[in-house]
């Protein structure tokens, strides 16, 4: 191995693996360094307790870029779906739940008017989300461009919006910065429906339904190929394993338990990395899958940046508010009113938009919600191998649980777990007795265990002011950092969070251009 042409990728998260696979396929010598003992970052399947395996952090696949799937031939590398499209079920402790599928209200407490309006609403939102989807595969334009060639991508965005047609374009521009709550108020009347959509808009963000920009985050969620999320066979770790297999097959080397301590900077250029073990590895280019602040402040050091750039980075918002609850259960949970056939679907606790917004309030003041919002899956229903026969694992994303909790998570974690289990117990009486093992991962735990700065699932808020050419900050939004030899490829870059792989794929293109052999 020679240092001269080697590319080091820091982090074997799904974007790091995607990037590594593309770089290796282009014939480059690629070394992926992963701090953990398994690949996947936040898309991993871990053993919770003996015989029970859970998707530790991310638990649904909704945004995976179809180009990545196809070009890396992930099916051949072992990616299979236990369920290609989950229904959404808004739980209702008083009776029948609301069931949504595609653009349809299947059953449950929704008015006739809402049943009629829902398909149009979803179709319209999907068209708007299409504008975002068309940006996923593009390197964002620069804010200050010097030539027509650089200005062209900016023009393409305008063109994508214009191609919606006059009526849609106007409506898109009207709603895109709105609070989802206001859009729901003018569109629907059934609380359960509004609650379900509100949850989709704010999950993983530090926004409430009454926050501006929450329509935009909703569109981001809808910008995947299929509207309904899928459940990979073997948990989310299976996606990462397939990406790793694709990268290895293309010739990339992946080293586990190899945490990087710092980047090596010589004469203002990144020339390699130094591991926590002290080992130094030279490289022509270093691509970081870590979040932007971790990469630039911790691994590189602000002193190697320019002052205004460092200040801008410092002020990007990346306070995680989503926690994770993982349970090993001795039997199937019995949710009130839920038909057994729906037990494996995506279950929501978000009875109405106002409830979600009230759950958000404490997070503003560094406290967690006592009446939280949950997105629950019981993946072992569709994928029985995750748990011993007849037993189950439950995985829930919980909001709102701010990273910067005033009382400190190490003091509050146990109390918080009890609150969460209490909420589940109210919707599924008897669940508490089934618990074999329980794990709550607060944003602080996500930072510690998965090295996501601020415990933010998306490596930074997915808001318009931190989107595309503003993600993570102007001057670094094209994957190449201001310091030569350093690139970002994670969710902190365009197009952002969710298991997509698009950032990794785009970054690889930029690296190949910027660091030719």
């Amino acid at each position, binding site marked *: 191995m020679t240092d001269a042409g080697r590319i080091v990728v820091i982090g074997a998260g799904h974007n790091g693996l995607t990037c590594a696979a593309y770089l290796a396929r282009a014939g480059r010598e690629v070394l992926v360094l992963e701090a953990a003992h398994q690949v996947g970052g936040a898309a991993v399947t871990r053993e919770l307790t003996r015989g029970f395996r859970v998707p530790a952090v991310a638990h649904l696949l909704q945004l995976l870029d179809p180009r990545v799937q196809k070009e890396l031939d992930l099916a051949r590398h072992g990616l299979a779906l236990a369920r290609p499209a989950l229904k959404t079920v808004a739980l209702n402790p008083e009776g029948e739940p609301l069931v949504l599928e595609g653009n349809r209200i299947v059953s449950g407490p929704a008015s006739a008017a809402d049943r009629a309006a829902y398909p149009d609403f979803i179709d319209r939102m999907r068209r708007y989300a299409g504008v975002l989807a068309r940006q996923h595969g593009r390197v964002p334009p620069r804010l200050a461009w010097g030539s027509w060639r650089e200005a062209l991508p900016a023009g393409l965005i305008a063109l994508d919006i214009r191609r919606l047609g006059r009526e849609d374009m106007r409506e898109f521009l009207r709603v895109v910065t709105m609070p989802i709550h206001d859009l729901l108020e003018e569109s629907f009347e059934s609380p359960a429906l509004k609650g379900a959509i509100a949850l989709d808009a704010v999950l993983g963000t530090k926004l409430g339904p009454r926050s501006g920009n929450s329509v935009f985050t909703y569109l981001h969620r809808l910008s995947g190929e299929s509207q309904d999320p899928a459940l990979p066979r073997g948990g989310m770790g299976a996606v990462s394993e397939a990406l790793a297999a694709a990268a290895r097959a293309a010739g990339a080397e992946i080293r586990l338990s190899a945490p990087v301590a710092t980047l090596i900077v*010589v004469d*203002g250029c990144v020339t390699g990395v130094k591991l926590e073990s002290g080992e130094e590895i030279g490289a022509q280019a270093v691509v970081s899958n870590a979040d932007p602040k971790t990469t630039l*402040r911790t691994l590189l050091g*602000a*002193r190697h940046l*320019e*002052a*205004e750039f460092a200040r801008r980075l410092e002020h990007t918002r990346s306070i995680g508010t989503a926690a994770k609850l993982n349970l090993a259960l001795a039997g199937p949970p019995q949710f009130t009113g839920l038909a057994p056939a729906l037990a494996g679907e995506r279950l929501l606790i978000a009875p109405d938009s106002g409830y979600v917004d009230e759950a958000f309030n404490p997070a503003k003041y560094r406290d967690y919600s006592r009446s939280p919002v949950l997105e629950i899956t019981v993946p072992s229903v569709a994928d029985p191998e995750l748990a011993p026969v007849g037993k189950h694992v439950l995985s829930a994303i919980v909001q709102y649980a701010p990273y910067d909790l005033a009382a400190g998570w190490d003091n509050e974690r146990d109390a918080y777990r009890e609150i969460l289990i209490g909420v589940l117990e109210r919707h599924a009486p008897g669940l508490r007795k089934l618990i074999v093992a329980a794990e709550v991962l607060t944003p602080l735990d996500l930072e510690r265990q998965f090295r996501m700065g601020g415990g933010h699932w998306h490596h930074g808020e997915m808001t318009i002011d931190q989107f595309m050419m503003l993600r993570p900050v102007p001057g670094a939004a094209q994957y190449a950092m201001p*310091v030569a030899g350093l690139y970002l490829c994670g969710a902190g870059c365009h197009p952002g969070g969710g298991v997509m792989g698009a950032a990794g794929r785009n970054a690889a293109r930029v690296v190949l251009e910027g660091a030719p052999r």
Partner: protein
Amino acid sequence: MRAPAGHYLQTVCYTPFHSRTAAANSLNLWHRWRDHTVADAYFDVGLEYTALRNACAVFDLSPMTKHRITGPDALPFLNRLVTRDVAKIKPGRVGYCLWCDDQGQVIDDGTIFHLRENDYRLCSQERQLDWLLTSALGFDVSIREETEEVASLALQGPTSCAVLKSLGLAAIETLTPFAMRSFAFEGTELGVSRTGFTGDLGYELWIDPAHAERLWDRLFEAGEFHGLKPMGTHALEMSRIEAGFIQAGVDFLPADRAIRADRTRSPFELDLAWLVDFKKPNFTGRRALLEEQRHGSRFRLVRLDVEGNKPAKDAYIYDGKRNVIGAVTCSMWSPMAKASIALASVKVPFGAPGEELWAEIYYQKELKWSRVNARCRVLTGPFFDPPRRRLTPAPER
């Protein structure tokens, strides 16, 4: 550091020398400099200037913004902040420097005093605490504004060394330009640096404000037979134009105050390329300045010898034809150069040394306006640059 409660309510401040400057100011001419009350002139601008160039003069420098930068990362911090290599400024030395924003546009210029290992003072025209703290992200430094904690005087002119000798500062003549030294002074410490803003032999004196008035008194006793006079801002302004020094807010707009992109200037555009050291791997503005070096600058700061005796105040500069190519930033009749002189910012490619340009000068006689187009020649080097400025030992006459 926390400011004293209610400090912002105090909008009129006096320097530690105010009792003395007030007594000396027979013209009662004052202006506001960073909230402080300072003299425009004390008795006659022309005579104050004459004292400066032929004997010596004292200027109350106390309102100049002073920052103290300490800590293990003080040097790397400063090296990332400014464009020149601060490692070359050894303890006991002073360096002129400037700093830029990310776009390579000048925010301000100033002087770095290397007091001791990991301990620096940065003096600047503008308040810079916000930018310094912004620049401190990721560095182990402590930054404090200490403007109010240090009283300072500029003692400038050919007999300035003799005055300090009379004051009892032993071997002061051996102090080299841009060096500083501490002296025991009546129970306190007096810092002396061979620095200034007049382009002449001169010193700046630094002392605890509690001892300021006594320093002033002793200085004037010592200077009695050396022609020492107090000097206001007007006379200082004349001397700095003759020396070819630039001033923030006059010859360039601090980049952090500019709204329009073409109003700012880079170090190259201020004729200060010698302050930019690309051998340093990183400083704020480096990438933009490298780019500018490759693609060329937009403007050039030139020194002009203007024909005739009319000061070219605010004059437009024309090329040989009828195109406006720039404007004068400061101008004066220079008694030392016996010429009307000006600094001007002109568009590239104009302003090559020796080039002939034209200044459109408006002037007034008894409220009647007239206009003259004066021929200008682009000079190299300052208008006034006496050898005594650099000599060590410093001449005592």
